[in-house]
């Protein structure tokens, strides 16, 4: 943050570029863009200190629409490129925008390494469970049996659960939200921003052209009561239109969905975003293997661990306080001689 007493006053307009937005009408990407543009002023960071880095995909067009610095890179490599930027420039806010193909298919390795390193990046994964830009092949988050252009007989690969994968990859901040739930998305993004280190947010995003309605159970007015589990720190985990369902941890070590009436509220798990171990978060992530079951949204995990960039910067500062390097001395080394 710039060191001024009065925080910088900004508006959404200052984060909106002059480029025409080019997604299909009705695409969930619009809502996410609007949420981000509206939220940015809250951070009081001038647009020139913010960078959006993306890969390739419909979602990765995002940076063009933000009036910040931006880099639309190549498929899957955004976390790697952003890592270099963030490491070289700890003073910037660096956001990564990616898709389920971009982050989890071709970019899977950079993604998991960014998480384990805990680089100061905010990674927003627009998960539409499909390859949008290349016109509708199945993705690593598509459900088994999906019929697409490349799988006319139905896909046979078991999908990733992005939240589970992130937790397995030592992520310090993991959350899930929805394109259509602006307040929830905004809250989650705010928390991601506040997190030091890599913050990962999976956003269920509707691709109305190639995978319309993929998240309807979780997002639609009719069913979301039964299918949306809103995680709230310190609160018992319950859901249903009247909170009649709840989640417990069995003695065998698994999360189970129960009727609260059957077990009593006391047995319900209390959500703990800050738990040192990712075990609870992982257990919760397994509740929904795809959106056909009740699906937790919100912040699964938010813990503090030294961040890669912080540590690198510290080592650099340490070394330099001990004395900044002298080029002549370096070149001469310890074993030089003179010829007169």
């Amino acid at each position: 943050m710039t060191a001024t007493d009065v925080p910088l006053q900004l508006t959404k307009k200052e984060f909106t570029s002059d480029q025409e937005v080019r997604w299909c009408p009705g695409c969930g990407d619009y809502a996410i863009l609007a949420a981000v543009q509206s939220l940015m002023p809250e951070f009081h960071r001038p647009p020139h200190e913010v960078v959006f880095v993306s890969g390739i995909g419909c979602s990765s067009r995002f940076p063009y629409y933000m009036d910040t610095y931006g880099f639309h890179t190549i498929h899957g490599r955004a976390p790697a490129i952003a890592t270099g930027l963030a490491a070289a420039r700890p003073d910037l806010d660096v956001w990564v925008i990616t898709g389920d193909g971009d982050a989890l298919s071709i970019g899977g390795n950079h993604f998991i390494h960014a998480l384990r390193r805990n680089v100061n990046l905010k990674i927003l994964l627009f998960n539409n469970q499909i390859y949008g830009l290349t016109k509708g092949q199945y993705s690593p988050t598509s459900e088994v049996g999906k019929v697409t252009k490349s799988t006319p007989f139905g896909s046979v690969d078991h999908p990733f659960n992005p939240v589970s994968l992130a937790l397995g990859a030592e992520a310090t901040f993991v959350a899930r939200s929805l394109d259509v739930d602006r307040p929830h998305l905004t809250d989650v993004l705010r928390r991601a921003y506040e997190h030091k280190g890599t913050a990962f947010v999976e956003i269920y995003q509707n691709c109305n052209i190639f995978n319309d309605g993929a998240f309807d159970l979780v997002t639609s007015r009719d069913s979301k009561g039964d299918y949306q589990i809103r995680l709230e720190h310190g609160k018992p985990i319950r859901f249903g239109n009247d909170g009649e369902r709840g989640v417990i941890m069995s003695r065998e070590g698994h999360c189970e969905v129960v009727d609260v009436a059957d077990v009593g509220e006391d047995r319900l798990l209390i959500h703990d975003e800050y738990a040192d171990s990712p075990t609870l978060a992982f257990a919760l992530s397994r509740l929904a293997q795809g959106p056909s079951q009740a699906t937790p949204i919100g912040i699964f995990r938010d813990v503090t661990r030294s961040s890669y960039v912080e540590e690198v910067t510290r080592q650099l500062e340490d070394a330099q306080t001990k004395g900044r390097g002298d080029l002549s001395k370096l070149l001469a080394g310890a074993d030089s001689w003179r010829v007169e």
Partner: protein
Amino acid sequence: MTTTTGHKVVAELDRVVIRFAGDSGDGMQLTGDRFTSATAAFGNDLATLPDYPAEIRAPAGSLAGVSGFQIHVADHDIMTPGDAPDVLVAMNPAALRTNIKDLRPGGTLLVNEDAFTGRNVEKAGFAANPLDDGSLEPYHVFRLALTSMSVRAVEGLPISKKEAERCKNVFALGLMSWMYGRPTEGTEAWIRGKFAKKPDIMEANLRAFHAGWNFGETTEVFANQYVVRPQQAAPGHYRNISGNVALAYGLIAASELSGLPLFLGSYPITPASDILHELSKYKNFGVRTFQAEDEIAAIGAALGASFGGALGVTTTSGPGVALKGETISLAVSVELPLVIVNIQRGGPSTGLPTKTEQSDLLQALYGRHGESPVPIVAALSPSHCFDAAVEAARIATKYRTPVFLLSDGYLANGAEPWKLPEVADLPDLRVEFATGPNHGEDFWPFLRDPQTLARPWAVPGTPGLEHRIGGLEKADGSGNISYDPANHQLMCELRAAKIAGIADDIPLLEVDDPSGEADVLVLGWGSTWGSIRAAIRRLRKDGQQIAQAHLMYLNPFPRNLGEVLSRYDRVLVPEMNLGQLVKVIRSEFLIDAQGLNKIQGKPFTVAEIAAKLEEMAK
């Protein structure tokens, strides 16, 4: 000239080539390095050629496990580590077997006879003990019980037998130091430093070193001591340096000279890893080193850092470059500075990972999709890696372009004395970032400098210059995404013209043709420089006139290359590949240049090049 000191005869040599060879576990590289430092400190000219196996540690005593180190020591300026050793130190039968064929007839052979046990002799594939079967007659053989003498020398110290035996390389070092009159203080200090935390081992090594020296001095085994006088080098400040260290220093220098913090994104790979190791020490120069998860992340991070205003560099070898192509193409498209260092090794595929080769030139030129021209700079000797690195960084930052810096395994690990540059004489590499609008009220990230055709470098954090870049085609000037057909052609041509235009900003090619009467020009690039130069010198001594020109810039070529080529009847292009530069020369200048191609994981010998030139003269 021969003099006698005490009971020993001191013979004076103008040059000698010594090779240490032993098991990977015998510490030959260390011994060679130390001998090199002592030689450098003494003031000789020198060149070295380490040669180690791809295995970490192949089975003890096996042929695959032999590790060698050759050094050429001279009282005059030399260019190569020498074609063939005059002296071979063989620590075991396997080392003898793999190296003896290189020793010149009449050469001196020192063998550690303790290691010539039946089992070892057999492992090396000898039918009988070569020390006894007369096969070594052509050589001047010294059978020395190096292991047992070392063990005796350290007797009484509280160290294990194995540790005692390990001192044999230092014993040999002491002996060779005596034989060639190398100064001892440096080596003693080095032993003290290296084993500072293990005083008993330190003491053992010191004793073994002295025992080796004394063995030469006091016994009757050796009649001769040799002296190679210091070189009459130009006055100045010197040090000994290997190619990879010089390259690392060149990058640090470029960072200091440009004021841009250095960011290295790298993934370890032989023979490039040492640059990562070296640079990771210099946090006091603000150097950030990032060991990435793979080569793609390494270059990606470097490019991200460049976007942020750092001097982004990535170091690797051929297989790594093969993975970076897509990102290099992105860097070409977004026009950001980036230095891509390729320490070439034997290919294709994993090939000969610890051996040298020059087979990635065409990859550097064309190894990407689309029209994506990249300038190429190649180093020609170990110390020249410094200059080449500074130059690569200069071009990258000035022209906002990725630049290839080519070195190879031979330069990387080879060493030579280096006359230190004065820091004040190094080029000014300062760069100006964009600070404000350049098109009315607007900032246009692709509005080019009319002179260099470089686009402005506007780094995040600069108020008012917010902009987006990416790999889709951009409209000339504004940089907005453009699918306009004519604009694409224009942009492709502009990117090409920018790189071609660098020819105006690099020196003309110098030709070494003292008599001006040569018909044949030898055109080389990269690490063949020394061998070619030495071969031409040799032939000139015999009265032959041959011209030499050596390319440091492979793309674009120096402006006068065509004119230079046109002056000669025949052009020979020696390369450690199957003919890559020669392809480009033929295409560009339509001359019937011929290749001399060696692809054996090791440099040309002087004799090989000389022989070809003599054949051409016939």
